[in-house]
């Protein structure tokens, strides 16, 4: 299917038991676009991100990534689709195109930073070790951790671990990068170094979907922000429009709460100086 955006999600629904957390999400993300998902906790933004990568099953709707229908093979005629669930192996193959960065980093603790990065290119893509090693070192250099190649994750700070996690995802040369609140588990002074890496990545034209609470990042880096609440997309648009002139009361409320929290932090910080 040519002409389809890189990510094309139509009427995605997801529930846990009787609790419906995604109530029909439509979203298109073009190649090279950076989209930030904003919204209060429990709004379904993380769940939606996980659905794109099939870490969660969806009950209705369709998600295409780079023209591939995620999780199923459609063998019906146009208008009357007949879906066949893909095998684990085929789902794994689909995920190779998508990099994911988690809130809790999830580095493999029994491997060094370099081994974390080399694991999937060697074992999944079957590439040559020497070549992957050079590339891993280049990636570590890129995220500013050239000297930490032989460090185990528990010898790294949270910010360093997250940067290794980004390098690990990039080593698979993904077409799309998903970030699930990448800075939420970090100490405040470590947030900047991770955002810096993400900023560079966006500047190099990577397609990114980022769930975040970092408004400054969303405003400066995103091509588009999507505000979600209660399992639906409330509004979306250019960051300057949505953040500065929200159209919906729910967006305004959320931003106001975020802003007042921000001001309290700023005031407390000013007292210290």
């Amino acid at each position: 299917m040519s002409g389809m955006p890189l990510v094309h999600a139509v009427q995605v629904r997801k529930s846990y038991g009787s609790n419906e957390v995604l109530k029909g999400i439509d979203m298109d993300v073009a190649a090279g676009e950076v989209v930030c998902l904003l919204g209060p906790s429990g709004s379904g933004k993380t769940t939606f991100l996980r659905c794109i990568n099939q870490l969660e099953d969806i009950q209705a709707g369709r998600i295409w990534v780079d023209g591939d229908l995620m999780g199923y093979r459609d063998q019906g005629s146009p208008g009357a689709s007949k879906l066949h669930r893909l095998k684990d192996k085929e789902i794994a193959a689909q995920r190779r195109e998508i990099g994911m960065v988690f809130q809790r980093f999830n580095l493999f603790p029994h491997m060094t930073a370099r081994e974390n990065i080399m694991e999937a290119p060697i074992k999944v893509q079957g590439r040559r070790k020497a070549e992957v090693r050079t590339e891993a070192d280049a990636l570590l250099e890129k995220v500013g951790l050239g000297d930490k190649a032989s460090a185990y994750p528990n010898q790294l700070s949270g910010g360093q671990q997250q940067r290794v996690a980004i390098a690990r995802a990039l080593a698979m040369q993904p077409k799309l990068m998903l970030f699930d609140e990448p800075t939420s588990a970090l100490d405040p002074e470590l947030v900047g170094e991770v955002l810096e890496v993400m900023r560079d990545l966006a500047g190099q034209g990577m397609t990114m979907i980022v769930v975040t609470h970092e408004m400054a990042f969303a405003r400066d880096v995103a091509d588009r922000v999507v505000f979600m609440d209660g399992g639906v997309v409330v509004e979306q648009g250019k960051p300057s429009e949505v953040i500065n002139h929200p159209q919906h009361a729910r967006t305004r409320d959320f931003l106001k709460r975020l802003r007042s929290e921000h001001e309290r932090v700023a005031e407390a910080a000013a007292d210290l100086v």
Partner: protein
Amino acid sequence: MTTGSGAAIPPSTVEGGSAPLSDTGPIKAVPVRHPGRWVALVIIAIFFAMVISSFVTNERWDWPFAFQVMNYSPVLEGLLKGTILATIGSMIIGVGLGVVIGVMRLSDNPVLKFVGFLYTWFFRGIPRLVLVVLFGTGIGYLYPKFDIGPFPFSQQLAGWLGMSSDLTLFTFNVNQISSTLIWGIIAMGLSEAAYMAEIARAGIMSVDNGQREAASALGMKPSLSMRRVILPQAMRVIIPPTGNETIAMLKDTSLLMALPLSTELFFQAQAIGNRTLKIMPTLMAACMWYLVITSVLMVGQYFLERHFGRGYGNTSVQTKTDTTKTRLMGLTIGGGK
């Protein structure tokens, strides 16, 4: 600094404070005394002295003979075959099969899950001694030979079709296995697998779910993620109880004399005891061998734990060697129990 800020202490308080200024150099304090420890040490020392003196003075211990028995060639052969070889063999079966069954029990496939459960239920429910006797005498009686055909029920099918040949490709005569040791190893290994399955299952469940997700997100198939990501981390949890199981197995090999198996440490020691009427020294010889092998196993366990514990220790090299020392000390204390 803004005036009235409560965060900083005004320097004036320190200079002209009412609290008496005292020496702030290195601390040389009188430590807390522990008289109880000294009392305990004396009591235990006296007790030990009594035991040692009885070892030396009571001639019925006959230590020289005990050491002599330890070096008798039938005892050494029994130690090598019926004790060490049987432990290694049955633990290889036990760990290998146990991990497979542990993974089966956590599988999404309901058939595998049930078979795993059934296995654990059966082999954990039958006493090892009974299993050993069962395998030693039962199999050869029930199935004196195995006929191996090209497909299941091929013999029966050939019979029904009235074929001249019964399609048997290869016949395996069970009674040809003169060594009952193999049956003992199989019986112990199957029994061990039931326990190892539970240990492996606990180890796998102890790995954070985020690890599975991270592996999936990198495009790993479930089997690859299990092999490269989950199991290596589970090993850290699996190894200490496996060390326990190995030591238990070492001791349980003494059950093999019920097979019956004569090339076994305890049987040989007893046989010499019965012949020479020096029961205690020969038992002591067996005890000492068991303790020696157990100590060797504990050292092996220490190195395995260190290997699979990589990435979990303390960060700096200095503290790492410190932990190593502490653990070694813990080990020697544990070994002397």
